[in-house]
């Protein structure tokens, strides 16, 4: 079967894929294909009907569908950009051929001169965190419930307990309340919440929904349908403390316990994956360990702001276009970027050198909440760059732009960490 040949093929038509497509186009790619498995473009944004998106990227506060719409508008009338929905990518091969399937075309192959992976992520499940109990109806991951409520028109239940105070859980607490349901409580295993402060206020505090920090669920009750959960306080190692158990009556449990980048296709390709981010190791061009394969968005590391997803995808799209045009010079040298002391993860994990004249944006996450800290970027033991950070939280990604002048100085391994505080 002859494969259709494109400059850039993009796997995933959510905000990352759409932004990468537009960026590839702006950077000269003439034939771009976006492959999307859902029935329409826009990815997870279409079900995120709340607002708070786009303040950085579009300088306007938008809802999720609104942001998706703006991304779609940018690409929809461009003859250079083709999109296929209802299309599942089955395999991505090292020779940049992609096997996909949809009802109209059947199984077909396309090929790109460059490939951008933007598959997003999935939700951590009950089985992954091993909550004891039966397996009744009424246990949903928050995102799956969100889709049903916001797009299909069905409620997951009436009396709801939420596990996890990440943004998805917080948003669903408010959403279910607005739909007339009773949200009994939000339980968070960490001693601090993992969601944006604005969401704690407008989703929990506004509706008097109690947030129990350092608590978890030790059993789900109900054989056919959830009837309640047993909750316990946890110690500093996050283990339930015997004797602290209490019961909460409910018919629904929503799990907001983490997102995992979806890298099955990346694994199939043999891309180097980072153990902590669970996504491909990428350089400042968002090129992976395999030349010609780029990645951006939640598939690289889970973001909390879609604006940063678009920024990252802009980078991937730009350099994918250059790769397709043959103008992306191979690296003369590669240096590792290591997250240390106080910084848990940092993307990119590698720098493709020479990097003169290019500012580099680092996206990183702190390991624990803290105030009045200083970020230090060091190269070979020397401090290259510092930035004071008034507040850091693991749940809020930090974006730091290293100016072009500084990137010219990077010749060996870089470390990114927090300066130890004065005693």
């Amino acid at each position, binding site marked *: 079967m002859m494969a259709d040949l494109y400059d850039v093929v993009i796997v995933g038509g959510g905000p990352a894929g759409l932004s990468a497509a537009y960026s590839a186009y702006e950077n000269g790619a003439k034939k771009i294909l976006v492959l999307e498995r859902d029935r329409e473009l826009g990815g997870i944004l279409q079900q995120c009907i709340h607002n708070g998106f786009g*303040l950085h990227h579009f300088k306007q506060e938008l809802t*999720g*569908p609104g942001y998706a*719409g703006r991304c779609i508008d940018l690409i929809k009338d461009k003859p250079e950009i083709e999109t296929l929905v209802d299309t599942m990518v089955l395999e991505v091969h090292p020779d940049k051929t992609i096997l996909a399937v949809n009802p109209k075309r059947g199984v077909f192959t396309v090929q790109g001169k460059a490939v951008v992976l933007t598959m997003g992520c999935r939700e951590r499940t009950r089985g992954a965190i091993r909550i004891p109990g039966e397996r009744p109806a009424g246990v949903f991951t928050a995102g799956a419930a969100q889709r049903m409520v916001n797009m299909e028109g069905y409620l997951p239940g009436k009396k709801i307990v939420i596990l996890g105070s990440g943004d998805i859980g917080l948003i669903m607490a408010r959403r279910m309340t607005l739909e007339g349901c009773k949200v009994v409580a939000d339980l968070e295993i960490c001693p601090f919440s993992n969601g*944006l402060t*604005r969401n704690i206020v407008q989703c929990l505090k506004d509706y008097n929904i109690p947030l129990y920090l350092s608590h978890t669920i030790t059993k789900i009750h109900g054989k056919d349908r959830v009837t309640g959960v047993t909750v316990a306080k946890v110690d500093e190692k996050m283990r339930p403390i015997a004797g602290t158990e209490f019961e909460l009556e409910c018919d629904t449990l929503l799990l907001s316990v983490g997102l995992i980048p979806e890298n099955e296709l990346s694994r199939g390709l043999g891309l180097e994956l980072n153990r902590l981010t669970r996504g491909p190791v990428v350089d400042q061009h968002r090129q992976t360990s395999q030349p010609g394969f780029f990645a951006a968005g939640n598939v690289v590391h889970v973001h909390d702001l879609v604006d940063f997803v678009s920024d990252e995808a802009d980078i991937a799209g730009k350099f994918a276009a250059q790769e397709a045009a043959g103008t992306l010079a191979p690296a003369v040298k590669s240096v590792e970027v290591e997250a240390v002391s106080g910084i848990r993860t940092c993307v990119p994990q590698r720098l493709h050198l020479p990097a003169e004249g290019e500012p580099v944006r680092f996206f990183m996450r702190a390991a624990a909440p803290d105030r009045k800290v200083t970020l230090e970027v060091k190269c070979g033991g020397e401090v290259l760059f510092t930035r004071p950070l008034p507040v850091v939280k693991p749940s809020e990604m930090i974006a730091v732009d290293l100016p072009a002048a500084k990137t010219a100085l990077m010749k060996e391994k870089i470390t990114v960490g927090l300066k130890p505080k004065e005693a």
Partner: protein
Amino acid sequence: METRIMNCINCPMGCELTVTVDEHGKFVSVTGNTCPRGAQYAKDEVTAPKRMLTSTVRIKNGFLPLLPVVSAKPLPKEKIIACAEALRAVEAAAPVKAGDVIVGNILGLGVDIVASREMAAK
């Protein structure tokens, strides 16, 4: 005089604000904001708190069964639940463009509810 601590919700920064109010609960001053919207938020929050409403309405003949909608401006916080309930009775009709007014002047509060996205007909 009394001080209240609150977090601004206007953007993901969530700046911690220290708001001073007088003995009648009237706004006096605020510190901790990094932009003017934060100051306005503090003022509103102690005087007449407002919130944006996002929800969905049924849509007839649409590509999807529900249309996400958003209030064009913030609404009085204490009216949010009532507005959400009022939307249950609404049925929009496809096709719809992003920004189309779906409910004008909801509950007489002077705020329109508009479509968050375009929705093609089936």
